[in-house]
């Protein structure tokens, strides 16, 4: 394992510290316990947005703290959910009197830890709602499983709910628009090469030189099936079809499309995937109204990409386009 790190146990702390130094105009980093809040938190009268999860998915979540997006991010250990004693102070720190929304990715660990924190916050008199992002179509959704994982759709939920909070929507309205995004967003990813968790020291899974993993999760969990290597157009088709099928996308639909890099794939490859995804959507009569291409929710240095598609309505477009000023997403300001 070769990494630009010092002590594997200090990776998250040192990295978030560096992040705080680099973006001091946007955020304040609290170190004990570890969480990141918007510089001007709490914003009085505004609904506070908190998200978090295992580290290793940068820029998620700290990169999305700032005006028009999150009020706080809570980084856990690498690929490990944060604990309630981090989530709770983050929640109270961003409560401007209008309540707080927890944006939780649907993993057992995230769900349980945010649940506990929400109970504790409620006990302290903070009104907390939660939404559960579960956009990964690679996972069978069933009453008898942990359900679908939250992946790329999280970025859209954070942005659009963040925009709604910024314009002054109340907790119920912000929760509702977050849920509307969740209901209309789907993702799927593929890995060409695994990543290595610093404290584990070995790759999270093994892939032969001619294999790829379809339906990969962002924690380096193995995906749903393993296939022989294909070209970019083939992989893009495999990722997009379950999404369009699940969303029932058809002629006249407008979408927000993200081609997300898993961390170790060059930008040039993501644009090749984007090119094909746009063509496939066009064939179905679907218009790509807005897009993101880049590393937005990663799995350390994993090679591969994921597609995320959100079926848009007018309000979502307005919210998406409104000003946002975070380390990783910035426009209109």
């Amino acid at each position, binding site marked *: 394992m070769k990494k630009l790190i010092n002590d594997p146990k200090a990776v998250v702390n040192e990295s978030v510290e560096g992040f705080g130094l680099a973006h001091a105009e946007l955020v304040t980093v609290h170190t004990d316990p570890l969480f990141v809040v918007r510089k001007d938190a709490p914003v009085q009268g505004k609904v506070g947005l908190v998200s978090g999860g295992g580290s290793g998915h940068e820029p998620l979540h700290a990169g999305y703290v700032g005006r028009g997006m999150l009020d706080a991010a809570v980084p856990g*250990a690498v690929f490990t959910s944060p604990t309630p004693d981090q989530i709770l102070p983050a929640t109270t720190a961003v409560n401007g009197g209008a309540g707080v929304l927890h944006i939780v990715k649907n993993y*057992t660990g995230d769900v349980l830890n945010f649940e506990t924190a929400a109970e504790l916050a409620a006990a302290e008199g903070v009104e907390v709602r939660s939404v559960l992002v579960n956009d990964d179509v690679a996972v069978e959704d069933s009453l008898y499983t942990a359900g679908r994982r939250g992946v790329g759709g999280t970025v859209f939920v954070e942005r659009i709910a963040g925009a709604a909070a910024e314009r002054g929507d109340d907790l119920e309205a912000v929760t509702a628009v977050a849920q509307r995004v969740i209901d209309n967003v789907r993702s799927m990813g593929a890995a060409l090469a695994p990543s290595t968790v610093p404290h584990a020291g070995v790759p999270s899974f093994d892939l032969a030189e001619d294999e790829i993993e379809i339906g990969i999760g962002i924690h380096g969990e193995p995906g749903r099936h393993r296939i022989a290597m294909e070209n970019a157009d083939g992989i893009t088709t495999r990722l997009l079809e379950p999404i369009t099928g699940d969303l029932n996308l058809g002629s006249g639909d407008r979408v927000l499309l993200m081609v997300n890099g898993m961390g170790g794939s060059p930008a040039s490859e993501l644009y090749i995937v984007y090119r094909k995804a746009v063509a496939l959507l066009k064939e179905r009569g679907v218009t790509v109204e807005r897009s993101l291409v880049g590393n937005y929710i990663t799995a350390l240095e994993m090679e591969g990409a994921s597609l995320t598609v959100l079926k848009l309505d007018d309000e979502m477009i307005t919210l998406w386009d409104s000003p946002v000023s975070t380390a990783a997403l910035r426009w209109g300001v």
Partner: protein
Amino acid sequence: MALDAGWAQEWLRTAARAVAENRMQLMELDRAIGDADHGENMDRGFAAVVAKLDAGPAAATPAEVLKTAAMTLMSTVGGASGPLYGTALLRAATSLGDAAEAQPDAVVAMLSAARDGIVARGKAESGDKTMIDAWTPAVEAAATAASAGAAAGAVLAAAANAAQAGAVATDPLVARKGRASYLGERSAGHRDPGAVSTALILAAAAEAAGEPG
């Protein structure tokens, strides 16, 4: 040996050693069907528990010790296992009340409360390939041993042995809860890391009671 506050301390210290020694095994198991962090999570948590016990004042009851451990695990482990073990130990502590030491029936009640706490939080059923598949046979074996008149330490030993067998029995199962469930059929043929850590922890409880099982 009496299952008093000293035993509870010793339990957690022994568990911490066992988890540290088996850190890589737990990582490997979680790497196969999860995200390769269970060993690290548990090791971080139990090391923090030991630090807390070292720093804190001596507790009067086993419940006090377990409650401290529960809060520490909850705030240091993270992941799915942190809240689950945290809840388990919290419920175990509550079940023990302010007794100075635990009698055989109280041990059964304590294990049963711990298991129920995990189910309440995680909603797993037997056969879902989770730590529950170690806890439930442990509770049953403890109950059987206690009603056969075994001493408290022997009750723990019975629980530990059953947990170990339960962990082994997760091998062929298809996961339906937790991260391994994303793998579907591909999760079969691997042992559940949480079931293995449960077996380690219960073995530590028996060992601390002078009954290595």
